[in-house]
């Protein structure tokens, strides 16, 4: 009766498929007020004056808050706005339509300042400063070093230099951010479309000077996040502060256009590299600088650093020096987007491998074969230790299973018929999982179990996966387990769903809780049976007698035996490292430069796969996001800092018509992590691997018409392809 490993459809779907899943905008409270924000049309400006007098006269308006209100209402810090869309004031009204009427009546005097949009311009000594207090636009600068890169470069047969630019991505979760808060004079409750309700609770309590025990944060159903909801945003504090001040329920839900500027962007890393290799294709040293276009506030800590530290990828490179620099610009703040530094590291190193292969005239498979790490665990040149795996075997098996060589032959055949098909692949190792996670497990008196997890699923199906893991550990039918999440009233603290950590960190916490609960129940069973019992399948047995879990729990509730019926487990989860090979094929139209993804195949060693149906769902959905990074999506700003892709009509999130046919495989001989679940995480693997596979495929297609072309940026737009062909 093992559940782990079976493709079980989700328990969450009943609510979702009947329209009953309640997202933050579905939270209704009597007397609800609606909040909205006045946002700067300028990328950089001093805020001279905010005048609410006309707005406050508008029908239905209840309150307005601006920079002068102090306390938690810290609008326009330092007296200025630093990106288009930054909030300068807030209005609260009884009705959404009246709210938007009133927002237009708020008069703001701005003094526009020169804006800086480009990282290289921001680095110049005479550049306008986004944050004057820093004296420069460099907000972070750290060097990662190992071995003797200078000597290795000197001794290298070839030195290859280049630059690769990754665009800004707008995460575009289908549900924009939103918050509802209410204060009854006793407890402040906040519903937020967030990945981090525990952080929301902490930050709101701190901002309002309330004890944690009087603040409750709830994560309702969340319509996607992809990293864009893992920070506590100013709006969450402001809406909570307004509810607290007004002693009334207040709701704010961003419009899509608002969300495009007021939710964090992702990627936007540039690598300048200098790499040394031997004539036989061994990479001897990797050096360079990763620049993050951090936007107006340094919220996306560690993105350039992750990209730097993971730059060696799955290759045995002994010498390295990579600088991670974050540069402030007058754009929406940068933060995590599905993969957060690892997709960038992988795209960079995969492009570097191809670049070196080209210079040496070597096959792209062969150069990787010669550099792959042979023995795990392996400490990379920047000190990160990859845990388990067999990269050479998985690489060869992966390419074979995915039919890479057959696809290349097929593309050659199709070329004879005039079709231009490109085939590419990528290899990756990525880092998942960090921190701690909390599980609270309660034995109910009918023999069922309730799990409260600190994980914060928003589409992953973790209620199903956790129930599978727990059912195996408790040896009871899955239907006897109910999983709750996203409420600080259930669990005191935790981190949440991000970084492909959920089932590894939170699932392991659940396993520990189950083990502890079994020990507790065994104590009570021993009292009832008069001998030390053995547990199996929901029954304690010894000396020819037995009691069921249900009987034990009932006895404890009646005071006939002692045991803790609710146990909490906190699990510290160190990093673990998935590995895989992905293959993509695209078709190119030389007339228009348009590239169509045809098929996408993945082969991942992610350790134990708890639910292959859900894991494949992560792989497929993640792949399309990475494909879209390669081909379609880009946040474009003009030289004044106006976002020219301000909504979904201008920013190309792919539709069903752009999606390729996917095939998902998991490694024949997986290498589990050391965590109780044995899992490594599947949430981001395909997003990490798909962009480089597609870039290689596009380059392969272009080279059928024009040999030697090299792609050094994403996205590769039809215009780029068209130009490269000329």
């Amino acid at each position: 009766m093992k559940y782990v490993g079976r493709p079980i459809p989700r328990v969450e779907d009943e609510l979702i498929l009947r329209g009953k899943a309640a997202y933050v905008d579905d939270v209704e409270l009597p007397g609800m007020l609606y909040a909205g924000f006045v946002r700067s049309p300028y990328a950089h400006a001093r805020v001279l004056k905010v005048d609410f007098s006309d707005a406050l006269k508008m029908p239905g308006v209840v309150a307005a808050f601006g920079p002068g209100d102090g306390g938690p209402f810290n609008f326009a810090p330092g007296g200025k706005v630093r990106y288009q869309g930054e909030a300068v004031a807030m209005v609260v009204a009884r009705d959404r339509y009246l709210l938007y009427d009133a927002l237009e009546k708020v008069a703001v005097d701005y003094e526009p300042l020169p804006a800086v949009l480009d990282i290289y311009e921001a680095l110049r000594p005479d550049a306008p400063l986004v944050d004057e207090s820093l004296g420069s636009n460099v907000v972070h600068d750290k060097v990662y070093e190992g071995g003797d890169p200078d000597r290795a470069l000197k001794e290298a047969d070839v030195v290859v230099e280049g630059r690769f630019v990754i665009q800004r991505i707008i995460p575009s979760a289908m549900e924009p951010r939103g918050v509802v808060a209410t204060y009854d004079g006793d407890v402040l409750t906040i519903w937020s479309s967030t990945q981090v309700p525990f952080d929301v609770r902490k930050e709101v309590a701190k901002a309002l000077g309330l004890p944690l025990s009087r603040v409750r944060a709830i994560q309702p159903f969340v319509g996607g996040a992809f990293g864009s909801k893992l920070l506590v945003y100013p709006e969450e504090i402001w809406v909570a502060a307004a509810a607290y001040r007004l002693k009334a329920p207040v709701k704010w839900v961003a419009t899509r256009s608002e969300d495009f500027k007021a939710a964090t962007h992702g990627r936007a890393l540039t690598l300048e590299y200098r790499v040394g290799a031997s004539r036989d294709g061994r990479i001897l040293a990797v050096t360079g600088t990763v620049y993050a276009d951090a936007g107006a506030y340094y919220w996306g800590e560690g993105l350039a650093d992750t990209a730097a530290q993971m730059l060696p990828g799955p290759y045995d490179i002994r010498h390295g020096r990579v600088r991670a620099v974050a540069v402030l610009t007058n754009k929406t703040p940068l933060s995590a987007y599905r993969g957060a530094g690892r997709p960038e590291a992988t795209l960079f190193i995969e492009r570097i491998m191809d670049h070196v292969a080209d210079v040496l005239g070597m096959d792209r498979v062969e150069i990787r074969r010669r550099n792959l790490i042979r023995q795990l665990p392996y400490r990379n040149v920047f000190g990160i230790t990859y845990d388990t795996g067999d990269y050479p075997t998985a690489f060869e098996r992966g390419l074979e299973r995915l039919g890479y060589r057959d696809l290349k032959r097929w593309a050659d055949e199709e070329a004879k018929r005039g079709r231009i098909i490109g085939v590419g692949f990528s290899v990756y190792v990525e880092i998942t999982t960090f921190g701690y996670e909390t599980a609270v497990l309660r034995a109910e008196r009918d023999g069922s179990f309730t799990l409260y997890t600190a994980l914060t699923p928003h589409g992953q199906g973790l209620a199903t996966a956790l129930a599978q893991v727990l059912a195996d550990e408790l040896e009871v039918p899955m239907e006897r387990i109910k999983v709750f999440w996203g409420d600080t009233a259930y669990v005191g603290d935790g981190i949440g769903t991000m970084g492909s950590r959920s089932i590894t960190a939170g699932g392991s916490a659940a396993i520990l809780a189950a083990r502890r609960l079994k020990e507790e129940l065994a104590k009570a069973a021993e009292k009832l049976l008069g001998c030390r019992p053995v547990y199996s399948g929901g029954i304690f047995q010894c000396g020819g007698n037995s009691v069921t879990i249900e009987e034990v729990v009932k006895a404890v509730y009646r005071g006939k035996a002692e045991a803790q019926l609710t146990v909490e487990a906190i699990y510290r989860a160190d990093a673990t490292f998935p590995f895989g090979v992905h293959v993509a094929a695209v078709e190119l139209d030389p007339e228009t430069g348009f590239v169509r993804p045809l098929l996408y195949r993945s082969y991942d060693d992610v350790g134990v796969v708890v639910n292959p149906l859900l894991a494949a769902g992560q792989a497929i959905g993640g792949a399309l996001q990475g494909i879209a990074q390669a081909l379609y999506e880009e946040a474009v700003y003009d030289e004044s800092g106006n976002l020219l892709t301000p909504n979904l009509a201008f920013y190309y999130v792919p539709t069903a018509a752009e999606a390729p046919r996917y095939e998902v495989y998991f490694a024949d001989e997986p290498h589990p992590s050391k965590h109780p679940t044995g899992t490594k995480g599947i949430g981001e693997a395909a997003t990490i691997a798909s962009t480089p596979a597609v870039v290689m495929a596009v380059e392969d297609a272009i080279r059928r018409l024009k040999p030697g072309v090299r792609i050094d940026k994403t996205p590769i737009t039809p215009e780029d392809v068209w130009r490269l062909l000329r």
Partner: protein
Amino acid sequence: MKITLKVNGVLHEVDVEPRKLLVHVLRELGYKSVRVGCDTATCGACTVLIDGRPVKTCNVLAVQADGAEIYTADYSDEVMEKLRGAFKRHHAAQCGFCTSGMLTTAYYLVRRGVKSEEEVVEGLSGVLCRCTGYQNIVDAVKEVAGL
């Protein structure tokens, strides 16, 4: 303005401001499955069937829908239940935010008798999904359409 809307077979008489969008009126009537995901009629999360055709209700004034017969993702009949079963088996929903728009559009496609995968894909391309990569949704609709 007073208008009447027949939603999933239930008649509603409502007094609405002329500027009010149909999506907001439906949500206020309690049909929360009709979701707002954008402001440019791009994402399709607000798609319902109006007089048999899929329509993005963020792009329609409620007064324009006066007298209309509307079906939302809350509706239940044999086809909708088949779609629900197929969506679940194929893992066609993740975060669920687009799912209502997908279900109503899929319902239209199945009722209309789609003939090919290409028609399914084209039919669904008015609804954006950021989670699934679409394949499982396409497969679920194909199954119910008998393709």
